[in-house]
């Protein structure tokens, strides 16, 4: 039996939680992992939504996994494979033609030259962006010597880019992606395709300032996809946790984080549903910051100003996920694995407008992922729709759900004529459903809105960005921490390393 100080509790069985547990266990801790959810991986795990039809996680974007950070966990030895090639993004034009966007080429567009120039610039930014993504944010609130050193190194890297690149980076980073794309490209479909990827974690459209930051982070931070989607990462992580002796209990709600009553309070134990207590000197929570600090921690232990910061953390969901099962294999236009049906940035903007007024988008655009090859069933699509509010005016009644479903099927029929005829099963997950079924507050898929003031040192707050909390021994490590929900596998590992004092 390990002593309290050797024992660590991880709250949250999403990818970040699993990655944190494996990191802690590999360092010799006795790790207990709890989550009220019953499905390992949470929204990233395998989901059978219709008999015989699975999606490997709810996310269509799978090329942003922080491969460098999870490399130390040896997941490849447990069967995780990475695709040998990058996956193209397809954008459907109004005339039915398809634009194919690859990292270093473009098929079906007029912007070949400007795209190559733009991409070369983004590639030059990639080392710096990846260093930022794969490292804990600096201690901005109270810089220590090492933090200053790390900050200086980043600053130096910034400077060694050359004055022109550096000034360009400073110029664009706060811009609306709409403007940045317009400066670079003629083709509205190319602009729409690239910008569409930055919106899922936000309640804004491409005209909002700062959307460029997210676009740059994604384009510069992109790698290859894991074979089998995020669910494959989840399986490998679960296997690794098993190997390392992590005691995982799902369907067990954490109820309270208790602290020492001595003068220097630190984490003492975690109380679970049913009244059971587990003593531990270390707790890493990948549940959202509000849940962890405002609901679980024993009241009175978090200073008021930190509580106020956490209360200000914005987690408004903006997307619905629509899973579809077909009786036969579905072929998307252009043979796309991932298809964006918005052919102009204006379509993206109009859909985001609806969010402001708590309405459904009049003509939603779809981000369609064809999982037919990965799923056991013959035809499986996962569709993400941006512009769907959690706080729908009038509430999420059956009529409202039906209304959304009709609009989505109409949009699908336009993009993939005839698909509807072979539809055999479906599951519509509104933001309210995402909240209820996956514990995602507000239906927020990325653990907190991914906008300028909620990134890096401000994720989730200046005083919490280093994963430490005011309660000694308690660390935050979920998607609500840097690098955030889009960049899977980052926060869990970085938080665990921090907890281990590295």
């Amino acid at each position: 039996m390990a002593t309290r100080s050797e024992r660590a509790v991880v709250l949250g069985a999403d990818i970040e939680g699993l990655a944190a547990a494996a990191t802690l266990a590999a360092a010799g801790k006795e790790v207990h992992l709890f989550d009220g959810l019953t499905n390992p991986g949470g929204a990233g795990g395998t989901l059978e939504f219709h008999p015989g039809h699975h999606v490997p996680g709810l996310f269509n974007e799978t090329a942003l996994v922080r491969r460098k950070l999870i490399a130390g966990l040896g997941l490849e030895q447990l069967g995780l494979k990475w695709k040998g090639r990058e996956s193209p993004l397809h954008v459907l034009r109004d005339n039915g033609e398809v634009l194919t966007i690859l990292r270093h080429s473009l098929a079906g567009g007029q912007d070949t030259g400007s795209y190559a120039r733009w991409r070369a610039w983004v590639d030059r930014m990639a080392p710096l962006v990846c260093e930022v993504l794969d490292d804990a944010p600096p201690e901005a609130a109270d810089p220590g010597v090492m933090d200053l050193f790390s900050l200086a190194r980043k600053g130096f890297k910034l400077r060694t880019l050359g004055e022109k690149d550096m000034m360009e980076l400073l110029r664009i980073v706060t811009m609306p992606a709409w403007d940045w794309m317009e400066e670079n490209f003629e083709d509205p479909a190319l602009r729409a395709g690239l910008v569409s990827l930055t919106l899922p974690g936000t309640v804004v459209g491409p005209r909002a300032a700062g959307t460029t930051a997210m676009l740059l982070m994604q384009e510069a931070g992109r790698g290859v996809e894991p074979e089998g989607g995020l669910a494959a990462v989840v399986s490998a992580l679960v296997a690794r946790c098993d190997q390392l002796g992590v005691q995982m209990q799902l369907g067990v709600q954490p109820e309270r984080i208790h602290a020492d009553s001595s003068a220097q309070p630190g984490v003492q134990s975690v109380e679970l549903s049913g009244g059971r207590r587990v003593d531990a000197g270390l707790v890493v929570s990948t549940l959202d910051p509000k849940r962890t600090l405002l609901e679980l921690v024993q009241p009175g232990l978090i200073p008021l100003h930190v509580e106020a910061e956490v209360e200000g953390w914005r987690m408004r969901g903006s997307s619905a996920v629509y899973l579809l099962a077909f009786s036969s294999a579905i072929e998307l236009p252009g043979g796309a694995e991932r298809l964006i049906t918005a052919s102009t940035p204006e379509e993206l903007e109009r859909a985001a407008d609806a969010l402001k007024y708590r309405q459904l988008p009049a003509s939603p655009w779809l981000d369609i992922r064809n999982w037919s090859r990965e799923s056991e069933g013959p035809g499986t699509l996962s569709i993400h729709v941006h512009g769907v509010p959690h706080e729908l005016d009038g509430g999420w009644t059956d009529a409202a759900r039906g209304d959304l479903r009709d609009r989505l099927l109409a949009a699908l029929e336009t993009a993939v004529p005839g698909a509807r005829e072979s539809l055999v099963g479906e599951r519509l997950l509104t933001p309210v459903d995402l909240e209820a079924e996956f514990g995602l507050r507000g239906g927020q898929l990325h653990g907190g809105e991914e906008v300028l003031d909620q990134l890096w040192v401000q994720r989730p707050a200046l005083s919490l960005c280093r994963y430490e909390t005011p309660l000694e021994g308690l660390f935050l490590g979920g998607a609500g921490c840097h690098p955030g929900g889009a960049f899977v596998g980052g926060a869990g590992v970085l938080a665990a390393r921090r907890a281990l004092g590295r």
Partner: protein
Amino acid sequence: MASHDYDAIIVGGGHNGLVCAAYLAKAGQRVLVLERRHVLGGAAVSEEIHPGFTYSVCSYVVSLLRPWIIRDLELSRFGLDLIPLESSYLPLPDGRDLCRWSDGELTRDEVSRFSRHDAEVMGEFSQAMSKIGRFVRPIIDSPAPEPASFNPKELMNLLRLGRHFGDATVDQMELRLKLLTMSAVDFLDEWFESEVLKSPMSVSGIIGTFLGVRSPGTAYVLLHHYMGEIDGAFRSWGFQRGGTGGVSNAIASSARHFGAEIRTEASVDHIMMQHGKATGVVLENGDELSAKQVVSGCDPRRTFFGFVGQEHLPDEFSQSLQRYRFRGSSGKVNLALDRLPEFSCRPGDAHLRGDIAIAPSIDYLERAYDEAKYGTFSRRPYINVVIPSLVDPSVAPAGKHVMSCFVQYAPYDITEGAENWPSKREAFGETVIDTLAEYIPGLREMILHKQVLTPWDIQEEFGLTEGNIFHGELTLDQMAFQRPMSGWARYRTPVRNLWLASSGAHPGGGLMGAPGALCAKAMLGTEGS
């Protein structure tokens, strides 16, 4: 080499051009200011468009005019006379209303009708904002830093600025970062619950930009309300007695006093160039005037593409200038009224002596923005109204009034094309009057005269490209060392002997005078003083 007619010729007699002229003249230079129109002041002018009524045609309130400029140029002696605005009034369509007074106690009472919580935190909010205002002031009072420079002096400056920033409590740091990155609405949401308070506060974040109140990066403009200084009093806005043009006239008088020569109706055709250097100007009447230095008080697009010509500019500079965004988003409607308008929400006039906002809800503001995004002027716009004749009877005949309405959004780029704005002018003016009439019954019958300025008119009449009142959007990527573009934020230009002294240079637009003064100091080599 032939002797020069002048040490410096200033193209454009807007307030910044005049400030620059006054500083140069004060330093003993032979200075000439050339203004195309018959009045001085550019967008800070007063004109008697309708007999007996003086309109502050464009700019209508004074806030950020730098106190050190007032002192250096002895502007009070030359006619500067500011009357503080006492209140900020918000009428609502449902008959409720809110008036924020310069007296904090009165405001708390008003706010507590909507939210006790908000009334309680208002004081704390003002304090926090004023603190940051004090932090930001040195930034608008000195030249922009140059982060790309390896010059040791610049690095030291950067380091000092970093310390200046880092030398704060965590709370203050957090607040500053949030102000820089958040949307005005999100930022206010963290403090207040009542939309009746948040909505009129949030609009200060969008004035002069083509963004909505929910767009990130709009929060920091809230600070401007806490940076304004009149007679050293913090957080105040004011009217110039006799109209905003009086500010320009005071600066012009000061410049003349120090020996500057000022000509109106002297339209510059182009800037003379020799061997890549500016050597003077050629007027539209063909006159050539030579000078050691040429200074532009006009916006960057007009200056470089209009007066210099792309053939004299490095390609890279031209490309950057092409990307510099103007996209004017506002218009102006000035009304002569035969009596004092009465708002149905609250009779009397005590609450009308400051500014009046038509901004009933955040959704209202967002809808106004959405319409503009898709290429039309807002059907129900945000309007900022002032009735200066209430506090300054000199601008209208006895018993009669002038009403100035700043209107947003009126996008320069309408679907029909900007050049078709004149055919929409009437409809635009009517929209504004209709909107106001919902709060002021009988307004239409009081109107003796109206002047409607669309973004197109502002461009054509006042020379502001795309009608942008700030000489280019004041967004984060066009501020400080990036205004108008990185490498050229210190008033110098790629054309030797040509300087930029306008709102298109750091610290930007508004009736501040800082770009003009900082440009003059850069020319004189007295930046530190």
